[in-house]
């Protein structure tokens, strides 16, 4: 290569190398620009993002509020839940640890499978729950053996606990992990292990009971391991809800009833539900620990529907307990006067159809009072024909039948009262015969025991009380506790008194259909009305062969109903009883109502300073009619120890007139108490 050639080559090289260097310099400039842009121009944004990366905000579950009964007895509480956890990274051999553990608490194959699956799915420093709801003994054994159980730790969480088990399950409800449909924007619901109310009060007041989540800010690394806590803000615990139920009364009522029976006891003056029993029931505690598929199947397939609250969701025809409604409608429409007598020959003819009275021989001439007392069907066939279905249905609604009563139990049925429009909307005519049948509470009605109790309370007080359960929230009494909170029904007091008199006669007069429901002396006077509703149609052929309901198979027998209020002259409590297939209201439902009313009086009327007893044979206190004697407070069924010492917030409300003369009578001794309520 010549010198010249070499020179040329070199100059080309130098030029190109310098160009290359310039290009590299340019690219270094580009990198510097990028770095400057990221750190200076966008630095703040990235600093925020780094902070978001670093700081993880977690929610703290606040304790769920408690549910208490009217006396402050806890009916839904938070219990400690001891759990065994396994942290995979703290043990060399997960299988060996589980093997050792299973010598203390036996682990089934499927449990082990679940645990190993959980461990695989999560980061190795995240503890996995091995077993919940440990007993003290198991806990202690694990603690003692801790050195042999690497990776095993014990911690305590909370679980919902219902001390009254199946007694209040239908009222208080239960809790379960939130479902998709429960997600309502509350971040609390995303917490693992959180429970939401699934039915009853737990569901209705879920937002109050739930409380507000606290937050804890932690520094975490990329895989979520907590490095340290930066800030902690405690949440607010859920509010306590006090309900109007008397848990001990509820227990007493439930002890009296059998499968298929429902009982509602209401404070007639303000609509507070005091007891609400539906048999059979279930244990809501089982939901807290997670129910098995077998248990669930058993509950849902059981024909007597333990999961369903029959007092709010059982639908029945009211039968003769409806006759007060027809009577009031007729009085208001002035189609019958109180004294007007209607002749009952035992049957009622309308066109070609013949409707029978329950008494084949007939009642003879009866006025309204007699019609109610004897529960004469013919009287009410005629009255219903005169007043018409429209006015009957309107009166039924005013009394709380077939309308949504807005009780705090989600899923409650409103029930149904048929109307002419409804029938015509189905493309069928409403015949006069239909009106006649509906005059005695049979036909298309579908009413809940709760609505029947409400009807009775409204009849007794003349006020549009609505049944409700919430008594106080966080110690503050809610609206609706005072009787004055409820507006008048607008039914003339004179009409109401006539109907009440009829109900009084049912129980307290010779020949009444529920003489058995008479309260024992000293308990005041009860007024009520029986009802029985056929579940199968009785054919003419059966009638001719001498049909008797009690000879039928159990599931063909009529339902027995009874509604009542007491005391007669100063109504305080309303009750409805439905005994499925109980055959006769007078025989099956009325005695039960009487016993429950005695329980109510024993539990809810205040205790005197000294025990009270009346001399045998003395039916009432001076200054009052015999019938209307206020009940002397009783101690027989409720020894003082059974009642909490704490003063009742609502004591002033439940207390009867302080002028009750029997209270201050010092001559009584504990040993002579003839008026102890009868036990069955």
């Amino acid at each position, binding site marked *: 290569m010549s010198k010249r050639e070499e020179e*040329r080559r070199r100059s080309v*090289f130098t030029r190109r190398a310098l160009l*290359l260097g310039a290009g590299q310099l340019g690219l*270094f400039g580009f990198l510097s620009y990028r770095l400057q842009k990221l750190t200076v121009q966008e*630095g703040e944004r990235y600093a925020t993002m780094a902070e978001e*990366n670093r700081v993880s905000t977690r929610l703290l579950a606040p304790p769920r509020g408690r549910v208490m009964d009217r006396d402050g007895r806890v009916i839904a509480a938070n219990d400690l839940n001891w759990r065994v956890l396994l942290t995979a990274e703290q043990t060399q051999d997960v299988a060996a640890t589980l093997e050792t553990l299973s010598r203390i608490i036996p682990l089934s194959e499927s449990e082990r499978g679940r645990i190993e699956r959980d461990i695989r799915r999560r980061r190795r420093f995240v503890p996995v729950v091995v077993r919940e709801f440990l007993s003290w003994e198991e806990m202690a054994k694990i603690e003692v053996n801790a050195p042999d159980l690497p990776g095993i730790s014990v911690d305590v969480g909370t679980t919902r606990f219902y001390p009254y088990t199946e007694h209040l399950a239908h009222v208080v409800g239960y809790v379960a992990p939130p479902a998709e449909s429960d997600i309502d924007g509350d971040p609390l619901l995303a917490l693992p292990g959180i429970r939401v109310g699934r039915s009853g009060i737990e569901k209705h007041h879920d937002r109050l009971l739930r409380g507000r989540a606290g937050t804890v800010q932690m520094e975490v690394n990329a895989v979520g391991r907590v490095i340290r806590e930066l800030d902690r803000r405690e949440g607010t615990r859920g509010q306590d809800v006090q309900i109007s139920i008397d848990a001990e009364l509820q227990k007493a009522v439930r002890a009296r009833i059998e499968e298929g029976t429902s009982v509602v006891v209401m404070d007639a003056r303000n609509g507070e539900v005091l007891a609400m029993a539906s048999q059979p029931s279930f244990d809501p505690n089982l939901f807290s620990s997670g129910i098995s598929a077998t248990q669930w199947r058993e509950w849902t397939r059981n024909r007597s529907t333990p999961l369903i609250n029959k007092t709010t969701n059982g639908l029945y025809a009211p039968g003769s307990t409806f006759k007060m409604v027809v009577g009031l409608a007729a009085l208001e429409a002035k189609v019958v006067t109180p004294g007007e007598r209607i002749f009952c020959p035992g049957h009622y003819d309308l066109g070609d159809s013949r409707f029978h009275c329950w008494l084949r021989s007939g009642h003879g001439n009866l006025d309204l009072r007699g019609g109610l007392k004897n529960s004469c069907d013919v009287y009410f066939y005629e009255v219903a024909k005169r007043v018409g279905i429209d006015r009957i249905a309107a009166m039924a609604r005013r009394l709380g039948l077939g309308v949504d009563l807005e009780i705090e139990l989600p899923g409650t049925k409103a029930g149904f009262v048929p109307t002419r429009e409804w029938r015509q909307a189905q493309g069928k005519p409403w015949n006069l015969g239909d009106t006649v049948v509906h005059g005695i509470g049979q036909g298309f009605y579908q009413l809940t025991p709760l609505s029947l109790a409400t009807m009775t309370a409204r009849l007794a007080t003349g006020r549009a009380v609505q049944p409700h359960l919430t008594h106080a929230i966080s110690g503050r009494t809610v609206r609706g506790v005072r009787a004055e909170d409820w507006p008048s029904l607008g039914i003339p007091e004179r009409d109401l008194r006539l109907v009440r008199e009829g109900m009084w006669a049912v129980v307290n007069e010779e020949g009444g259909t529920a003489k058995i429901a008479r309260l024992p002396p000293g308990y005041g006077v009860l007024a009520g009305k029986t009802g029985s509703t056929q579940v199968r149609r009785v054919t003419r052929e059966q009638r001719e062969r001498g049909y008797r309901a009690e000879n039928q198979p159990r599931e063909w027998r009529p339902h027995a109903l009874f509604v009542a209020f007491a005391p007669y002259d100063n109504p305080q409590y309303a009750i409805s009883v439905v005994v499925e297939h109980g055959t006769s209201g007078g025989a099956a439902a009325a005695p039960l109502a009487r016993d429950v009313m005695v329980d109510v009086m024993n539990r809810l009327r205040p205790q005197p300073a000294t025990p009270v007893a009346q001399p045998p044979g003395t039916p009432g206190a001076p200054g009052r009619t015999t019938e209307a004697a206020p009940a002397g407070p009783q101690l027989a069924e409720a020894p003082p120890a059974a009642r909490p010492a704490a003063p009742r917030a609502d004591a002033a409300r439940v207390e009867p007139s302080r002028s009750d003369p029997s209270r201050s009578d010092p001559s009584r001794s504990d040993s002579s108490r003839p008026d102890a309520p009868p036990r069955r």
Partner: protein
Amino acid sequence: MMVFERRLLTRDRGAGVLEKLWLIPWTFVLLLCAIAAAGYVALYSAGGGAPEPYASRHALRFGFCVVMMLSIAMIDVRVIARLSWVGWLFGLGLLVLVAVHGQVGKGAQRWVELGPIQLQPSELMKIMLVLALAHWFHRASWERVGNPLFLIPPVIATLVPVGLILKQPNLGTGMITLMIGGAVFWAAGVRWWKFAILIGAAMGIAPIAYEHLHDYQRARIQTFLDPESDPLGAGYNIIQSKIALGSGGLWGKGFLQGTQGHLNFLPEKQTDFIFTMISEEFGLVGALTVLALLALVVAFALLVALRCRHQFGRLVAVGLGVNFFLYIFVNIAMVTGSIPVGGVPLPLISHGGSAMLTTMVGFGLLLSVWVHRNAEFGAARE
């Protein structure tokens, strides 16, 4: 053609090792030490504020590599030139070996076990290619280079290893190798228009090539174009890297105070993403300081190229300079989210033996060129 002369140095063929050591530019060695020290600091932080497991090994490795570099610098550049094709064949052999027996890592065969060390033959190949091409063009006059037929052997010598690297598959290194080869071609005087045609052709076939990429390579390109589209998957690295860089601000969060790095949000923070550690803890100031030190190394390579009196040395210096530059550029462009992520470490700073070894071998060769910059090559032997 001139007669082959057996003189090694300009003045004396028998120049001793001591004399050669005297010729070593110690400022440059100091510069390398400064960069390695920055790497030590960053790795100390990446190790959670402890020399273990990264920083101490980094220092040890660097010390070993400095000795190796100086040893290579002692070798006569003409010997190196003579052996360059042997080196190329050796590199190619390793690439074939890795294709047949390589360790599979991250879905690609890249590593080969050579006794105790894992070697990435593609890294070695880049240097061998520079030597081989420099040797080829060493004697070529401007006119000769203009002859297309003359260019056929070096093009093949470039494309065969590039093809093998792409086949691994290692898109990033393949492209880098191609660019280094191109830089040598360019410096040797290959005509502008040939490059223009090649680049035009490359752009033409790029869409077709894209079709033949592996899924993960395509995903990488797609994630690069829109990192937020996949914040927890492939885009995670880019996003976290940018957060770490940006959150450092002008002055940084302070030594050992980088949350992104210390809380493990940065993936591979001790290797490919080490630069983000520096930027997070020492801010833009620290990052630019390191960048300037690295740029000085590139500048030194250019200086060697310009001062060298033989074409072989010039081309080697340019090739190695571009090699080092591409390491830096690709790595920093990658962590700043400027180009798709590829497993390219930051030389002398990232933890890892293979990259440090090949980089320092390169610097050894560069120093050899510098020490023997006045060597006179004999006549062509062809």
